[in-house]
């Protein structure tokens, strides 16, 4: 097994400056949102109180961070040690993803300074209450799961400059303690992470069931929580493949095609389960015909379904899995499928009454892109200075 090591590349490449540009432009719009109200930036209205910040930044953000718990489950729980190299990057991206989800929620809350109320004032009937708690706990668990990388990098090497030197010893003690405790308790956190993920991934699917008269029949189903969970599990490995492929190109690393092709064999298993549940549910409720009525929702469903179904059949074939480009495209298709599915449930499938329309404003897009850029920026920071990616 290779050891993971920091990349230690030159950090401020042109790409990073591009990220900083996106973050800056998002910050400008965020300023108006915080000091002049939502109306000054967003196209949100009485009929569309949730916009792209919830549909993409939160709903898709949570789903796309599923690579963390699926990889952890496959490697640590089901003991598939040969995929070990994929765990650390997956856990790091999941942590960054959930951190950004939390940040996006903060931006989207009207009274953001009351965000801590979710901890203190409980309303057990609220789906959001459950989502908030699970996301918060899981973010903590992900933080803990990332500590070993920090310990590995700095234990025995803490050397703070100047005045701070007096903190060298306490920092060392802390790292040693963390190392010691985590070595014995990590299993607990790994399983907790999976259980918490099951909880809020499915609860996100329950969220829009509060609106039976608004959500389109194609998505309004009591099975929605299970569909959200299985689709999140399905997109976990595609996200890992997507990120690994991009890292290969951008950091000019040796391709990990063999490893990725190997782990990709699980994707059809997950996707198949999801598609079976989805089709079975639609057929059982007798709403399949609505998919072909030519409406925006019907067409959107068809595209969503194709984005899941095509990679399912493709990835069953070993030859396609072994082709780096085709594997990447299949993974990307599953990712787009999940993204479109979340958009369908949170925006496109929601008929909030006549006379109202919603399309995200430039400001909303800018803030969303800023979050994406910030995520990539943090990942870049992580792999550059922490032992995340394995040495080649």
């Amino acid at each position, binding site marked *: 097994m290779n050891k993971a090591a920091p990349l230690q590349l030159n950090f401020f490449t042109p790409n990073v400056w591009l990220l900083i540009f996106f973050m800056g432009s998002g910050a400008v719009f965020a300023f108006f949102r915080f000091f002049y109200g939502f109306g000054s930036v967003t196209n949100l209205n009485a009929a569309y109180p949730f916009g792209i910040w919830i549909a993409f930044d939160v709903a898709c953000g949570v789903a796309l961070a599923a690579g963390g718990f699926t990889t952890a489950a496959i490697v640590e729980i089901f003991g598939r040690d040969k995929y070990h190299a994929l765990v650390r990057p997956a856990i790091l991206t999941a942590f960054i993803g959930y951190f950004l989800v939390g940040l996006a929620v903060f931006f989207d809350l009207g009274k953001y300074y009351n965000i801590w109320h979710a901890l203190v004032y409980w309303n057990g009937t*609220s789906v959001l209450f459950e989502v908030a708690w699970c996301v918060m706990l899981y973010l903590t668990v992900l933080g803990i799961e990332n500590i070993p990388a920090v310990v590995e990098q700095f234990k025995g090497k803490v050397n703070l400059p100047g005045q701070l030197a007096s903190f060298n010893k306490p920092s060392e003690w802390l790292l040693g303690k963390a190392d010691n405790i985590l070595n014995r308790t990590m299993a607990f956190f790994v399983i907790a992470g999976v259980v918490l993920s099951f909880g809020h991934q499915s*609860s996100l699917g329950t969220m829009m069931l509060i609106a039976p008269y608004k959500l389109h029949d194609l998505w309004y189903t*009591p099975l929605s929580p299970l569909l959200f969970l299985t689709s999140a599990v399905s997109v976990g490995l595609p996200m890992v493949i997507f990120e690994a492929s991009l890292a290969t190109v951008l950091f000019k690393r040796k391709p990990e095609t063999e490893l990725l092709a190997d782990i990709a064999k699980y994707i059809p298993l997950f996707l198949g389960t999801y598609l079976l549940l989805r089709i079975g549910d639609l057929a059982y409720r007798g709403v399949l015909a609505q998919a072909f009525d030519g409406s925006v929702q019907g067409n959107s469903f068809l595209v969503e379904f194709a984005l899941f179904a095509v990679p399912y059949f493709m990835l069953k074939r070993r030859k396609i899995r072994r082709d780096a480009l085709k594997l990447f495209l299949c993974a990307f298709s599953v990712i787009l499928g999940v993204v479109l599915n979340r958009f369908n449930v949170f925006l496109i499938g929601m008929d909030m009454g006549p006379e109202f329309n919603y399309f995200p404003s430039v400001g909303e897009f800018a803030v969303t892109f800023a979050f994406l850029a910030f995520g990539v920026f943090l990942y870049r920071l992580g792999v550059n200075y922490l032992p995340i990616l394995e040495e080649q």
Partner: protein
Amino acid sequence: MDISRRKFLQIGAVASGSVVCAGVKPASARDLREPNPEWLGMLNDTTRCIGCKACQVACKKENKLPMESTLNESANVGRDVYDAPRGLSERTYTLIKMQQDEENEKTTFVKTQCMHCSEPACASACIVGALKKQDNGAVAYDSGLCMGCRYCMVACPFNVPQFEWQNAIPSIKKCTLCRETKLKEGKPTACSSVCPAGAISFGKRSDLIKLARKRIEKDPELYQDHIYGEKEVGGTGVLYLARPKMQFASLGLPAFKYRTVAGLTESIQHRIFQYFIPPIAVYSVLGGIMYRNQSRKKNGGEEGGSHE
């Protein structure tokens, strides 16, 4: 060996999946709670409303709300605008809307405001419990608790809660049933007390239902034999009467089912987290699998997943 391992993985996945399913599948609407006869409410008689909008003015005065204008809006909408303003907003808690039946082209004035549901979806949805059904029947909002997530706006089937989009620190705004003002003085709501046509009756919900029944019985020519809100979405605090042969849906009052809107989400939530059995079950199954794999590794010194 290989096959058994793969089987094991599949069984594990199915087992943990079915634990979750078990919590989800039997999700059906829970039993309705009987509305409290002491709850206050209003009866809007659309056969009596003359569309004078005195109630709107009284509401604005009572709640100190600024005016709104629909001047020049017909150009934007592309048709004539008769309602001013066109819908509920953060500045308008009640509104008379002119509704036209598509079939017989008859027009009716219909008052809109918070329905003060018996089982409010907004209250069920609110993450911090900032919206609550009060003992007097009003669905009250606490802006100090609110986080501004707007989930109540998604949840409300009548699209009542409104958000202050133009404020840096926005709150939810909606009809309060004059809970903090008129009701405290023992007076009826502002809108009902100014209606010159007797179209808005204020009182206990149970009395209002009796009153509505009496009107229907007395004049079956004038009234449709249905009290909107008696059963819809589990019962609402504001009830409606309409002329015969008139679809309530064409009055902007959709034909909602009699079960509560939040029934499905609540029963799903309830089942998944009842006594924490499903999460603990998933945890145990996963823990067992992990333990088995690790002890096997220790004993055999073999790396997992070496097949294929």
